[in-house]
Structures are given as structure tokens and as C-alpha cells.
């Protein structure tokens, strides 16, 4: 017994010594969160190809991962719209050195066909892959990424966090999808890359900093809940330009539409259906807003309209 132990000890020692000469190079990559940690499960991407999570999706890459399902009418559209803005902020780096993955938690219903349809709805850009897989595999993946798998009977309650990581360095950061897209883009482009890219924002003197123009609740809600799909006077995005909408629609209708668009669509409200048809059939999501929230947003939209009118009529106004 003792001899066996000694032999193992010596073997272990030799193994360690053999690695010493390589240690500087080996340490450049962390070793803890690698192939033996991440499950190399097979997923099917939106083109129907089989890809391995570790080997093909994350190994050596900076990635952004979230979990969705395509029949989701509330959170996922907003998440996808938010992630789309992060994608936009990163420009052509997505697909080159940063990769986006949206993985379905609805293995029974989501197929490459439904994923492609969902992607078309949201006009998803390059470098962003949608995937589906067996429930067991996706759940294992979620657990390993620190996400609690959803109750399959209540997918609505699934964890919507963005997981951002650099597999090579072993840095993993999770943030809410409601955060400022530029902040999420900075994490992906700079923090996860040892700040190796030159700063994307110009260094600004503190004397040039001005307070945010509108810090009202309506402005905040619009920025975090609406602006991923809408502008006010800036043209259509995924959804319509909301210029003038605050006055064009009856207040009660608009308030309810902001709060429970899913129910209005289900009730086949004619205006709602017309809007949906006109805008790529992306349903307006139910964001769980309260009546007061909706009023704040409507007030904000109206203030924007008034400000634009005043700016246009002022001398020298643009």
C-alpha cells in the first residue's frame, strides 16, 4: 500500500514538474472554467445544423447568451429587442470576436423553422445564433451558467438575464436585460477583453458633463421598456415611430394597449390587429406596466411632441 502511494506521489510530482516549463504560457488561459466544466451538449441552430455548446459556441470566444422561447409574448420580445440594441452598439465586432446566442427553453415547440421566423420578425443581425435542444441538455446548460431552469409549465417565469463571458479568460458576468444597452456593450467589448480595445468613448473632461435632460419616470420607462423598438420622431424601428401617438389615440385605449396588448390582441381589437400586421407581426409585449406607469409614458411621449413643435417654431430651430 505504502509503495503504491509513493509511486502515485512520484507520478504526480513528475506530472507537475513536466508542466512547470509551460506554466507561464499555460497560465495565460485560465484552467478552471473550461471543457471539463461546461457541458458540450449538442444543440440545433436556426439553420438546422448541430453545434456543440463548448466546442463550437463558446470555446475561445467572447459570448452573450440568453434564454428565450418564440411563443413568448411578453419578456422575450423585449429581451430580444434589447439584445438587438447591444448588437447594434457593438457593430461589426459581433460575428468577428463577439458572438450572440439565444437558446430556447421550449424544446417541444421551438424548431429551426420557428426560430428563423422569430429572427426575421426581429431583423436579427449577423453573428447572432438562435438554438434549440433537448430539455435535459438546456437545463444542464442553464444550471452550469448559474441560471435556474424554468418550470416547463410556466415558461413565462424563465430567467431572462444576459450572460456575458470570455471563455478564454474565465470571466463571466450576468446582468439584467433592462440595463442600458451601451453599458452591456461596454462589458462585452471592454471589460471582458481586459480593456484591450481602445476606449470606444472619447475621454471626456468632467467640466463637459451635463446632467441628464429628462430624469422623469416616464423618460426612464420609455428608455428601458420602449426605446428598443420605438422612437419618437426618429422613424420606425421594430415598432412604429410614436410621434404624435399620445394625441392621435384615445387615452383609455392607449393606456390599456401599453398595459395589456396581449389581451387586446386576443380579443381581436381591430386597431391592435392592424398595427401588428403593419409591423412584421411582432406582437407588442406585455411588460407588466401599471396604469400609472402607462400614464407616465404617455405624458413623456406628449412632452416630446410638444418640445419638438416648439423647437421647430423657434427662430433658428431645426
Amino acid at each position: 500500500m505504502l509503495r503504491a502511494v509513493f509511486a502515485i506521489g512520484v507520478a504526480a510530482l513528475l506530472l507537475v514538474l513536466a508542466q512547470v516549463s509551460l506554466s507561464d504560457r499555460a497560465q495565460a488561459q485560465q484552467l478552471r472554467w473550461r471543457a471539463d466544466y461546461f457541458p458540450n451538449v449538442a444543440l440545433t441552430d436556426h439553420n438546422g445544423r448541430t453545434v456543440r455548446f463548448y466546442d463550437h459556441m463558446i470555446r475561445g470566444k467572447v459570448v452573450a447568451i440568453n434564454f428565450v422561447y418564440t411563443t413568448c409574448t411578453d419578456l422575450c420580445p423585449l429581451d430580444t429587442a434589447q439584445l438587438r440594441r447591444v448588437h447594434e452598439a457593438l457593430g461589426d465586432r459581433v460575428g468577428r470576436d463577439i458572438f450572440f446566442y439565444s437558446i430556447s427553453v421550449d424544446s417541444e415547440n421551438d424548431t429551426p423553422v420557428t426560430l428563423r421566423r422569430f429572427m426575421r420578425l426581429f431583423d436579427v443581425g449577423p453573428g447572432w445564433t438562435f438554438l434549440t435542444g433537448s430539455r435535459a441538455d438546456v437545463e444542464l446548460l442553464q444550471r452550469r451558467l448559474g441560471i435556474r431552469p424554468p418550470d416547463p409549465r410556466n415558461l413565462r417565469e424563465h430567467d431572462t438575464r444576459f450572460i456575458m463571458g470570455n471563455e478564454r479568460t474565465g470571466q463571466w458576468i450576468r446582468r439584467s436585460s433592462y440595463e442600458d444597452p451601451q453599458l452591456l456593450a461596454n462589458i462585452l467589448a471592454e471589460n471582458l477583453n481586459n480593456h484591450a480595445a481602445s476606449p470606444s468613448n472619447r475621454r471626456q473632461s468632467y467640466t463637459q458633463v451635463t446632467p441628464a435632460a429628462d430624469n422623469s419616470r416616464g423618460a426612464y420607462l420609455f428608455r428601458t421598456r420602449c426605446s428598443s423598438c420605438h422612437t419618437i420622431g426618429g422613424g420606425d424601428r421594430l415598432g412604429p415611430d410614436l410621434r404624435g401617438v399620445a394625441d392621435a389615440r384615445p387615452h383609455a385605449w392607449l393606456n390599456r394597449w401599453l398595459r395589456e396588448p396581449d389581451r387586446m390582441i386576443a380579443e381581436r381589437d381591430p386597431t391592435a390587429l392592424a398595427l401588428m400586421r403593419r409591423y412584421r407581426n411582432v406582437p407588442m409585449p406585455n411588460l407588466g406596466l401599471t396604469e400609472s406607469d402607462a400614464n407616465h409614458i404617455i405624458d413623456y411621449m406628449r412632452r416630446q411632441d410638444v418640445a419638438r413643435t416648439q423647437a421647430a417654431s423657434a427662430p433658428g430651430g431645426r
Partner: protein
Amino acid sequence: MRRYRLSFAVALAAAATLAFGAEKASAKDFDIPTGAPSSPLFGARAFTQPMLIFEEFGTQPVPTTDCANCAPLPPVPSCNASPDGAALDAFLRQPLWPLPTREANATRTNYWAPSIGGCVRPLSTSAIEGRPPGEWFAHQRWGEFPPEVYFQTAQAGARVNRGLRDAWQRHGYSMGEFRRNGGLYHRGGTTNGLEVRFHPNFPVQQQNSVWTFDGTMPPKLLMARYGEAVLFRHFNALPINFAANNGFGAHTLTTHLHNGHMPAESDGFAGAFFFPGQFYDYRWPMILAGYDSINTNAGDRWAGTPDGAGGITRIRGDWRETQSTLWFHDHMIDYTAQNVYKGNAAMMNIYSAIDRGREGLRCNYANPNNPNLCFPSGTALDWGNRDYDVNLLIADKAWDSNGQLFFNIFNLDGFLGDRVMVNWTWMPYLDVRARRYRFRILNGSVSRNFKIAVVTQAGQRVPFHMIANDGNILEHAVAFPNSESQDLPEQAIAERYDIIIDFSQFAPGTKIYLVNLLEHEDGRGPNRLIPLADVMANRYAGDPAVGKFMEFRVAAYGGVDRSMDPADYVEGGQTMVPRPSIPANVLATARRRDFKFGRTNNTDETPWTIRTDDGQGYGADLHRVDAAPTVGQWEIWTLHSSDGWHHPAHIHFEEGRILTRDGAPPPAWERGARKDVYRIGRGTADSSNEVEVLIRFREFLGTYVEHCHNTQHEDHAMLLRWDSRAPGQVVAVPTPIPTWEGVYYEPTWDIPTAVRP
């Protein structure tokens, strides 16, 4: 050669595991350590090694002239390592250089700019100091509170201690219990040769497994005096490559003094972090709160600081806000849990007229007009005796099969270790004299609360007294066991309890134990209390961190105990520190703010948000200010747990008084105290869902944070920014964005309720 020895130790340790067989596995239902197999013990048995005693940083006078022949921070041998240990010691032994400046020093480049150029990218500009530039993070009231003493250290990878600080220990390894002949804590009179190793049987920690101050053990202690401003220069000597971290920890740092009365630029704002090759100057004024409004002529005999010669130098401010036991630790946005766990935590004892660490010198018990409360400490030094005044940093840890420190970065509920360590030693013993001792107990865990019992070998509870809560000396000592709690109250992460145990009631040779009774199943919060009898009779199996974790071995005492008897200071007896009465209209007129910690957005599964004033629940975005109290204004902040999970909520900068817990008065140990950590949510009887706190911010302005001190929650991202503002201030402090090149600023915005007229 050193590497060879280290490898050999690892191999031997691996062999030892095989020889001694697998250790007792954790029970099935407990995911502890979180997401990992149980930590091997390499054949080590409990209570076979002495506990490490904190090593003092040692402060020195700030030089008045710039050093002419000082060398720069030593270079790094590779992108993945800290500098050579001997070179780092030689550097840290030099005087403070360059001299500190009011605004961040941007006149020189990052010490490691050439290496960073090779490892990351060439830098067009860089700065030697990582503090954000310009006026916004300039030292406030610099002319009024110039630093008088300083200490400097480098955050660095684990290495052998070479005795750098031996000569800076106040006890000099020559006095009291630190003396050569017969002193309990002399220990060879040096820390030279001490490695970072949690038990002699365990492997030495590799350089990138543990990152700590100097890179060495023992853990470090700052001993500071009121009225003597301290400059702390913190060098970042961590690897330039992020990945060289053995699986966890960020190499960018910001250091928070929890909960000093410190200006914002020296508070360790989560977004004001600095990079490898830089330093950050923290200037701690060491003034009493109320400096601008109370006792402004410094006439109060109780407001004072030891003068080094048996007397007291009187100082301004409110002596009833005297602080004693603090700690400082990393506060890096997204990485606080990992960095603190990895070793970026030190303790700080502040000495004052009432708490000078000197017993027997004009004691309050002898004459009620004497300020000195004479807590157990010692008599050799004028202040800061540590013979019978011992800091205990208690934290749960885990390590991998090679014995290297392990952290699961993927668990967001919270991370639990399976091994409780005291002062970075696993299951230590401490020799103590048969007399009174003061223990300053800090819970330095990531997600674990403790409920500590003091018991005899036979399982009998040992009576003791609590004298301070979160570093604030209580109005009256609280005796335990009592009707509200048999044992020390539940102690959440970052809470400090100072207690006095009298070992004179025990014969030499007696063994006394600290026992943890609070069970966790996961990192969301404590689960239940385990009866002491079950633990002592080995009838409990579950959470491996429940049970004995420290042993005291009582030795004979030949001296005379001149410390106060806390029994004289319990309610009905003498007073330690009276509580200021709350002015009549304050409760009615204070500005109220409301913070809900937890799962607050009905469309967002992200649990870790804080919802301010029933507005939106937010994750951390340091551009956003959720509260902007005006200096001097009374405020009442209500903290709730809205998800039922446990959250130790922490407000920076000022302590508050707990007015109510779930509408009822708080227990005895919180009634007479000021606090900086407020337990809310799921817990034991010592917790509650809601806490109402009376608080006000004084003397300093700028940007601070409030957050959950379950640091895994804090990092994901249960943290908000609040700013202390001058009356009428309309421009918010802009948001610093640190990069390798330097720090630039982005705009800040207030939520609508942040500013109240």
C-alpha cells in the same frame, strides 16, 4: 527551486489524501461547498495548529520631502505574475514616494506601462494613480485634514512572508504577551518564513489562488488613532492578464473602508477602480462624525485620542459616535465577492479616549469622569495593546482537490464554503490566559451568516458580554445568555461583534470552543438553528460548517486583570456610551426613503434589484443616483426584503439607528447601538423583514453606495449609488469610467425621487 518545492508539497499532499482516504462527504441535500466536492483535509485534524494573529501594517509619519533615490514599483516577470517578493518588500520599505497630492497624480505613467503594452496593448497615455482625475475625486478638505501618517501595501499574489513588517509592530515582539520569554504570542518574534497555507498539512497556496495585502499572511490590521489622518497607498501588483487568477478574482481593485466616516473619494466607490501597475491614495481623516456641528471647540473631555504619553488630546466632533472595530476590503463592481474571498480584506482598529486599548490607566470604572473604558487589552503600551484584545476574522472557504482556494463564480444565489476558517487558519486553537479577553469578531464570508455559541468541552454555555456592535460601543454591555438570545445574535456578512469572555472562571488546561449553530442549505439565506446539544453530541449531519470551529486553551495568568468588568455596565448599571436623544420633531420631519431588496419587477426574473421609493426596481448602474440626501439632513430609510430571501443591507459612510424591526423595537444589542449592516428577510428570530433606520450624512460630499452584503447578490447587481450633496447642489458627480489609459467621465442621472426639496 521554490517552484520545485511547492510542486513537491502538492504531490505529497495528493499522496496523503490517497493514504488517509476520503474525508467525510457532505450530506446529500446540502450543496456545500456550492457546486463542488467537499474540501479535502489532507489528514489534518481539528485544533492542531495555533491561530494566526493579525499582523499590523504599521503607520509611519508622512515624509515632507520627495525621496531622491527611490526605486519604482518592481517590474513583473510575465503577464501572469506579481513582482518578485524580495523586490516588492524592498520597494514597500522605501518611504512614501511620490508624495501624495490633492488631485489624482497623473504626472507620471503607470509603473508597468511597457509591460502592459506587451501584454494588453500599447498605451498612448496612462497614470501612476488610478484615482479619477480632477476635482470630483480630489481629496476633500485636504488643507484641513492633511495626512499625518501613512502605510503602503501592494495587493499581490500569495508569497512567503519575509518579515517586512516585523519592525513596525507596536508590540515589537518584546512586550506583554508578545515578549520573548513566556509571552503567549511571541512566536519566534517574526513572521519571516510564514507561507500562505491554511494548515501545516495542506499545500501552500499558489501565487494566483490567494491575493492579499503584501501577498502574505497573517491577515493585516491597521491600528489608527482618532485625530491622526491616515494616508493609505494601495498598489495594485496583481497580474496584468485577467485570466491569471486560478478561476476567480478580478485584477482591478477599489478599496472600501467599511464603514469609516470618510470622504467619498476615499470610500472605495465601486466604479472608481484601478489597474495593475497603479496605486490609489486613500486619505482617511479620522475625525469624529459631527465634526462640523458638535463639540466644535474640542472642549468635551470624552472626545479625544491617546497622545502616546498617557494623556488625551481633545478633538472636535461627537464622541458618542466613536468607532472601534472596522474592516476594509475590495469593492470592485461585479467582483467584490470573488476578491474579498480571495484575500482582499483587512481589519482596522480605531483607538480613542474611551477605547484606547490600554487597561488600568485612569479607568472609567475607577472614576466615572475618566473616559477610558479600559476594555481588556494590556498595559505595556500607551494605546493599542493587543495582548488580550484579539481580532477574529471568521469566513467559510473551500478548496479543490489540490488544496487550492476554490470559488464557484456561477452560483448567483450565494456561495458557501464547507470549511470555516479563523484568520485564514483552519480549525485553529488559541492559547489564552485565565483572565478577561476582548474578541473583535468579523464575519468575512461571502454568503454565510453565523450564530456563534461559546461553550465548554462538556457543551455548557459560557457566559459572556457584547460591548460593541458594528464597531460602535453599546450604551450598555449585553450579557449572554439572555432572554432574547442564548448565544451571540445571528451575525451576517460584514457585521462585527465585540465581546468579552472571562476565562478566569476556568482552570488552566480547560478548553473552550466557538461553535456555529446556524445551518445553511444554500446561499440564499440561513435555514435554521441547530440545537447546541445536537451539535455537541454529534447528532447533527448536514451543513459541514455547523459545529466547533475554534478552540481556546486556558493557561494560567500571573498578572492582575485591570480591565473593566462588563457586568458593571449592563442596563441599570454604568453607561459605556450614551445614545444621543433624538430631537423632538425629527421623527415627524425626517425625509423618508424606502428601499426594497429583492425580486421586485413583475416582468423581470432578475432577483437582485433594489427598488427605491416604490419606483422601478433596478440592477446596478453606477451612472444612476437613487438617493441624493443633503448633508446634515435627518433621514429615515426603510429597508425591506421583498422576496423573503436574506439580505444583509449595508449603507456606506454613516451608521444609522434602528428605530423598528417589523414595527417593534429592536433587541437589546441593537437598541443601544448604531449599525451599518441591517439584516432583513429570511433568517432567525434575530432578523426581520423590514427595518427602519434613522440616519444623516455629514462632513463630506460625493458618491457612495448601498447594497446587499451577500456579496454574490451585490455583484449581480443588488447595489445602488447614492450621493451626499451640499445644499443647493445641482450638478451630480459624473460617473468615472476607468481604463488602462486613465479615467474618463460619463454623465450621471438622478431618479426622480433622488432629490427632495
